[in-house]
């Protein structure tokens, strides 16, 4: 990868900030096809849909009814429709052994190029994901037709620092988080009037700066039951500066142009990833993991 990294062609990203219909796979599929076609008309190179954009979020026992295998013809249809572009879509994936995952897939060249299964399933407060879903076990970057490495993550995955760190160290230049983030906490002291939004905005800028990567956040809008999703999708540059911010609560296909060469420029200027010490991190983690499992030598944990 990297042959086009210093290229001068900007990459147009389309953020599909949609309001999926809960449990209505066919309606959502139709909406995806419409927006992929619109993204193409607008000269998009990468179109991104939010977490569970094909199914809606608050599925509970509906999860099994809307689950798809990776060889599902409907996924292949989306991949075919997006040919010539890169697309990220999210759905309930059923594995061969019938576990259900919250998945995000990168579709390129008419096929499913890479799948990320949500690793961190929030099961606290208003969330109950672990009851209905299995947790993914892999965090891995993937090469893409865009000539850069892509790191996929789903919502809560980014509330754990290890996720963006691993993705960047594994070769991602572009970190993509797809979310169904329910808005809450309207205290008037928050920067943008919503506690959830203020927290996410801080995270995105921090990760972009610390990984010297583009960070793309695609969050849904609309309502599932009690929950209102706040949108506010963003593109943050490798310096931590905002490239684009979509409005909160508004449905739409929003586009932003980025210079992929910014990653190289920033990493030369600020070589944080060069100076990372993965062997040290792995060694210390090994020690800590052993300690937490009760396997450490006396006094070591």
């Amino acid at each position, binding site marked *: 990868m990297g042959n086009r990294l210093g290229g001068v062609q900007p990459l147009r990203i389309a953020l599909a900030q949609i*309001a999926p*219909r*809960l*449990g*209505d796979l066919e309606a959502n599929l139709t909406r995806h096809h419409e927006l992929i076609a619109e993204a193409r008309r607008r000269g998009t190179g990468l179109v991104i849909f939010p977490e569970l954009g094909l199914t809606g979020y*608050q*599925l*509970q*026992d*509906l999860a099994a009814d809307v689950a798809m295998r990776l060889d599902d013809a409907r996924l292949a249809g989306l991949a075919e429709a997006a040919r010539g572009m890169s697309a990220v879509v999210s759905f309930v994936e059923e594995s061969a052994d019938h576990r259900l995952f919250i998945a995000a897939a990168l579709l390129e060249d008419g096929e499913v190029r890479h799948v990320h299964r949500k690793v961190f399933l929030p099961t606290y407060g208003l969330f109950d994901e672990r009851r209905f879903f299995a947790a993914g076990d892999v965090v891995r970057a993937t090469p893409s037709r865009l000539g850069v490495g892509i790191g996929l993550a789903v919502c809560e995955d980014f509330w754990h620092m290890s996720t963006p760190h691993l993705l960047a160290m594994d070769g991602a230049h572009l970190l993509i988080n797809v979310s169904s983030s329910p*808005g809450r906490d*309207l*205290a*008037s*002291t*928050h920067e*943008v*009037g*919503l506690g959830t939004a203020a927290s996410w905005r801080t995270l995105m800028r921090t990760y972009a700066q610390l990984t010297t990567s583009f960070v793309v956040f695609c969050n849904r*809008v*609309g*309502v*599932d*039951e009690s929950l*209102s999703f*706040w949108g506010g999708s963003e593109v943050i540059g490798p310096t931590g500066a905002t490239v684009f911010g979509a409005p*909160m*609560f508004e449905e739409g296909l929003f586009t932003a142009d980025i210079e992929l060469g910014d990653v190289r420029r920033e990493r030369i200027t600020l070589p944080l990833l060069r100076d990372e010490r993965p062997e040290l991190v792995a060694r210390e983690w090994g020690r800590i993991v052993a300690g937490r499992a009760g396997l450490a030598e006396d006094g070591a944990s």
Partner: protein
Amino acid sequence: MSEVEAGTPAEEPMFELPPELAIDTGVARRVIAQFIRGQLRQAGFERAVLALSGGIDSALVAYLVAEAIGPEQLLCVMMPYRTSSPDSRGDAETVVTALGCASDLVEITAMVDGYFGADGVVGEGGAEALEASALRRGNFMARMRMATLYDRSVTWRGLPVGTGNKTESLIGYTTLFGDSACAFNPIGDLYKSQVRQLSAAIGVPERIIRKAPSADLWPGQTDETEAGFTYPVLDRVLFWRVDRRRSVDEMVAIGFERALVERVDKMVAGAEFKRQVPPIAKLGPRTAGVDYLYPRRRPGSARP
């Protein structure tokens, strides 16, 4: 907050807003409008109906619904009893006129008196019911209003919208299957102080914001004299206990009176049953609410 400072400096502020309870009213209105539209769409409805009392809670919900879907889609039903305050009726009519929404007037006097009796004439509830307490009568009235509202929801083809706030829900100052009955509630997570703040921001008439809150179950009744503390105090206790998870000892350290905190705690615990769906005895393989868990609205559930 500009709302708090509304009015000229010489005037009393419209209401007291504890600073920690202040919300961003612009964001609140956007979230609530999206919520109302989403609830209706998912259920296959375009219209809404609500019980308008003349008090601040139902006035605010009327404004929020009108803002979300347009006043022509809203029916406000006024349901006075013979002892209800004429002022309440007048305030309700002010809201209807200001919004330009549809309204209905349904007197519940005959329904209520038909059960409890009146002027010494025994009703369907028997002789004993003539002596019924104000509490029994108040609960019955709330349930007659609920029955009327749900019937009107059929003729208007609109979903009944809830108007209860978080404060009264937490302390249980509400009638089970009465005023709390609804298809969805846009303000059930707002404390009374926040209801006032949002009401001022959205333009609810000042007179309605300023008047003492009352269930209007008997002449001269007000919430605050009945409960023995003011809403700003109660809201603060609930906010720090419930939302901020402070222990009783921590509450005392912050400066709250222990007796007050313990009294509010008791009210909250005692009202838990009012906030939840009644339990079903678990007998079969899949039981609603236990291990049969579906969203209220899903494909096929919308009215055609």
